[in-house]
């Protein structure tokens, strides 16, 4: 496609890549050739015929959307004959079309009707017949309406669903003039449609329109559009929010921009209503005599400052700690981190990453020197092998999954899934390995052994890029020796031939990506699991080029960024160790502080902070935008710990399971009320922009943090705008040195970006790893059995996870009717064999107990998606707080908790 050819369109000289789409080339050169069925993201359809042109030397009128440009092509795009033909076609289409327009949606067809003067009845040749055709409306979907009388049968929705989202939920029914689009058996709401709304975004007429707020929208009147970043998962989709009268009324994906190119999932498109929910916190609250009473900001902030100062003076500076937040911006978290380090005076700052990808990051930092994803999200579309392990990406990172499905459905790439539980991606998978919970190390060592014994290693790569070269490899080989296919099958339950084939496909692929998720990381052996993945990757040389590497998709919008800006007990901004005196000295200079004031001792991590609170070593805590009373493991213990705190400040947008334990609650802003940046899973720094005013007195997090610091006598700095904070981040974190707000106006930049002119880095480790000697490190690790096993009293092993429609502690997601209409009830998945054995039936309510706690009234869902002896529950629902059952026995390296494995019993 790189070779340029010369052509003329209506005598205008144009050069374009050979083979490019003629219609697109004409559009890109400012020629308004009309079209309806064509869309840049879709394969050409050639159904509407409006984009007809004449090409010299070719007969007839040709649909330009189906023509590839070639050297010397002479094209006529506009003349009387073409325009007359277009008008005739539009007229014909119009006669079977309901042309009423409520102004709530863009309508490309209507624009053309006006452009060709067909709005005037006297200009038409055909009478209107749509009313006689009996077109139906389908209102059964919770989020969209379909009106067949507005549909021009252009295929855009069908292709949007199939080609872009990889779902293929839509189809035509009937034939000829009475055909129309259907989801499911002519009932959209009962189809496989998951509400992503790609079809709405690409519909050219308004046949498919969003339901929420439709009556409030007049597209040509009083709508303001703000571009920002989605507040849900870590894909970082670019959104355009439509705002009317200070209220968000619609969300669209931004076309033509990474990482999502217009795609969204149901949460991104329909999950914004929580921002304007009446439950929002609007004023500071202080607990007096066990009850929360409204307070002024001055009163609340003074109290917070005084109490934190008292605790520090009474018990020493180590008695305070803070939870930062993966929901808020880099700027908020940077100041939070700065407050803990410079005002609290210790390094006790951490956040939910410790419960998420801490093990992945730890293993990656030790082996590769960077803990972030090595490739771009778009790389999945061109990968030939994707090893997806413990990663339910269709539900947790739906837009990333669209690229993965694209590679399979359009290029025949292969997906290998490692997951004890069925996930929707299994439908597209070449191989599904279903190991028993907690046996990943054995499985991966088995794959490593296959790769070694079949000579599939890349010796060259090992010698050049692995620390210790072939000698280090020999020790891995010796360890892997005992993981014979037979032994691995016995431990994991995975059939040996499947495991062997998976190993061969991965090792032999040209551009294989590993997508590792919570299933791999949230275990006591989480770091070991990822070490094994990295070992396999290094000996096969499958990293360090576009399309090859290791990518942990981050769960929350800004998990990546919060670590990047240093809200960690172990690292300063840019992943520099807190123990690195040189760096502390440098940062102290930037902050204008004496070097000695910065604590050089590592702080406590998330779960350790709670354990220290239980031991009364931590006395005061500042929690920003986190909900440990639902998301921490072993909740009963967390509750005891949190009750022992002398003073707790919770800063949030809603009351949560945690706020009842607070002494002061501070109301903060939601994403659409904030300015700043997030960093997504592929290290892309993305702008967040304010679209609406915060409710009541709610304030942006960083302003609250700065006020507390000031009132504790140690102001953090003089910041007029979020960009001032960012500029300081760029100074302290070398990975961001070249990034400033002006460069982020239209698109994100992937770190490392060390200098102003640097374009950012799409692929990590191309030349060297980020370890001190530039080499990757092998960490051979043995499989070890789990300390918690199923036994007579607790015969099941419980796994936990997420679903598409809810999000984490569901504080946000459950306050959107669109999302709760899809899913709003907890359940436990149970294998049919177990249901039979223990006498449970589908839909029955049960209670579940572990050694740590119990929960009740959980609906049984019988499914062969889990193995016999294993259960699965989502963790989103506060009335079914599954973390009352989980353990806080930590992975020794990363301090992550084993959410994925608890022995439980089920009772009636």
């Amino acid at each position: 496609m790189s070779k340029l050819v010369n052509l003329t369109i209506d005598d205008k000289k144009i050069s374009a890549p050979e083979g490019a789409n003629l219609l697109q080339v004409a559009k890109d050169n400012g020629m308004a050739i009309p079209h309806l069925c064509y869309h840049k993201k879709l394969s050409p359809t050639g159904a509407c015929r409006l984009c007809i042109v004449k090409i010299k030397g070719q007969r007839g009128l040709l649909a330009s959307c189906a023509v590839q440009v070639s050297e010397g092509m002479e094209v006529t795009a506009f003349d009387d004959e073409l325009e007359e033909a277009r008008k005739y076609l539009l007229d014909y289409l119009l006669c079977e079309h309901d042309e009423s327009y409520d102004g709530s949606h863009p309508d490309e067809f209507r624009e053309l009707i006006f452009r060709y003067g067909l709005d005037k009845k006297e200009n038409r040749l055909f009478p209107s017949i749509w009313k006689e055709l009996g077109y139906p409306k389908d209102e059964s979907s919770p989020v969209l309406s379909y009106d067949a009388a507005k549909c021009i049968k252009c295929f855009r929705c069908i292709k949007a669903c199939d080609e872009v989202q990889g779902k293929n939920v839509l189809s035509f029914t009937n034939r000829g003039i009475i055909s129309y689009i259907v989801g499911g058996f002519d009932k959209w709401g009962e189809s496989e449609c998951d509400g992503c709304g790609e079809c709405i975004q690409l519909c050219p007429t308004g046949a498919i329109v969003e339901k929420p707020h439709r009556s409030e929208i007049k597209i040509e009147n009083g709508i303001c559009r703000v571009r920002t970043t989605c507040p849900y998962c870590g894909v970082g989709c670019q959104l355009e929010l439509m705002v009317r009268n200070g209220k968000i009324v619609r969300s669209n994906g931004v076309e033509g921009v990474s990482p999502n190119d217009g795609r969204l999932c149901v949460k991104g498109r329909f999950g914004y209503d929580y921002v304007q929910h009446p439950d929002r916190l609007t004023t500071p609250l202080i607990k007096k005599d066990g009850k929360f009473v409204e307070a002024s900001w001055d009163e609340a902030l003074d109290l917070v400052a005084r109490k934190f100062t008292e605790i520090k003076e009474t018990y020493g500076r180590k008695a305070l700690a803070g939870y930062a937040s993966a929901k808020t911006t880099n700027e908020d978290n940077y100041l939070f981190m700065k407050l803990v380090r410079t005002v609290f005076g210790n390094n006790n700052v951490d956040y939910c990453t410790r419960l998420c990808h801490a093990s992945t990051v730890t293993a990656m930092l030790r082996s590769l020197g960077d803990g972030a994803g090595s490739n771009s999200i778009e790389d999945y579309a061109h990968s030939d092998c994707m090893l997806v392990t413990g990663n339910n990406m269709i539900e947790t990172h739906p837009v990333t999954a669209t690229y993965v499905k694209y590679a399979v459905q359009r290029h025949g790439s292969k997906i290998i899934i490692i997951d004890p539980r069925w996930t929707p991606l299994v439908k597209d998978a070449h191989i599904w390995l279903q190991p028993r919970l907690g046996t990943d190390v054995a499985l991966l060592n088995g794959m490593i052994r296959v790769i070694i014994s079949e000579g599939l290693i890349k010796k060259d790569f090992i010698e050049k890029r692995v620390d210790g070269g072939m000698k280090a490899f020999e020790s891995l080989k010796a360890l892997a020796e005992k993981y014979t296919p037979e032994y691995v099958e016995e431990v994991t339950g995975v059939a040996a031939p499947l495991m062997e084939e998976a190993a061969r496909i991965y090792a032999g692929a040209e551009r294989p990506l590993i997508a590792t998720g919570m299933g791999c990381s949230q275990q006591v052996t989480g770091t070991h699991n990822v070490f094994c993945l990295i070992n396999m990757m290094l000996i096969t040389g499958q990293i360090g080029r576009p399309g090859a590497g290791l990518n942990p998709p981050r769960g929350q919008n800004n998990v990546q960024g919060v670590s990047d800006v240093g809200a960690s007990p172990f690292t300063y901004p840019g992943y520099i160790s807190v123990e690195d005196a040189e760096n502390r000295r440098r940062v102290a200079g930037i902050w204008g502080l004496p070097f000695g004031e910065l604590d050089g001792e590592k702080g406590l991590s998330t779960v350790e902070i709670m354990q220290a609170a239980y031991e009364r070593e931590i006395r005061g805590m500042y929690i920003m935008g986190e909900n440990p009373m639902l998301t921490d493991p072993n909740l009963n213990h967390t509750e005891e710990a949190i009750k022992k705190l002398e003073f707790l400040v919770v800063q949030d947008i809603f009351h949560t399971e945690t706020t009842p334990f607070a002494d002061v609650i501070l109301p903060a802003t939601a994403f659409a009320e904030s300015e700043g940046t997030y960093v997504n899973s592929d290290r892309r720094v993305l702008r967040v922009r304010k679209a609406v005013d915060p409710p009541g007195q709610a304030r942006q997090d960083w302003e609250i943090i700065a006020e507390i610091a000031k009132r504790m006598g140690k102001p953090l700095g003089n910041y007029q705008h979020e960009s001032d904070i960012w500029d300081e981040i760029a100074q302290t974190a070398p990975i961001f040195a070249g990034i400033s707000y002006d460069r982020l106006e239209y698109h994100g930049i992937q770190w490392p970006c060390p200098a102003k002119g640097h374009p950012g880095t799409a692929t990590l480790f191309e030349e060297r790893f980020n370890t001190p000697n530039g080499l990757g490190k092998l960490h051979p690790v043995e499989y070890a059995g789990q300390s918690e096993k199923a036994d007579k009293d607790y015969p099941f092993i419980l796994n936990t996870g997420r679903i598409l429609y809810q999000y984490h502690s569901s504080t946000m997601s459950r306050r959107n009717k669109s999302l709760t209409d899809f899913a709003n009830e907890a359940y436990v998945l149970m294998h049919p064999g177990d249901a039979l054995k223990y006498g449970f039936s589908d839909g029955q309510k049960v209670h579940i107990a572990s050694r740590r706690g119990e929960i009740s009234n959980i609906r049984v869902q019988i499914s062969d998606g889990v193995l016999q002896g294993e259960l699965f529950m989502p963790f989103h629902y506060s009335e079914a707080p599954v973390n009352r059952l989980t353990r806080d026995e930590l992975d020794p390296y990363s301090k992550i908790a084993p959410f994925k494995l608890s022995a439980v019993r089920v009772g009636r």
Partner: protein
Amino acid sequence: MSIEEIIKQFEPVQHNLLNILHALQDRHPQNCLTEQALDETARYLKLTKSSVYGVAKYYTMFSLEPRGRYIIRLCVSPVCELLKANQIMAVLEKNLGIRAGETTSDGLFTLELSECLGQCQEAPSMMVNNEVYNGLGEEEVQRVLVRMRRRKKK
């Protein structure tokens, strides 16, 4: 035979979709495709519901509505029309007491119109389920109907 048993006679490959739908419809006592049948077919072939539905609705030989045990398809293409297919239609309508597209109240017959059955040399023609009847006259039609009523259970 259950729906599952019928479906499993075929390989789970997408090009078997039409064969499976025909088998399911033929074995249904009311000559139609139920939503459950479509659903199980979709799952077996790893297709989405709408792709199966779209196919079933595209072909007029498939019906999602319950029909009679015997589907009478009278040819109304030009040759049959010329040879008075309309009179045959009148006989059928009178005898059965229904119009084209309807089913008798005893659930035995459904009357449908059909494009050319390829029997022009012996027009007019009709089909009853998979059997073709040519050179029809009033008596012939009456005879067929009597025979079908007598057959009752196949």
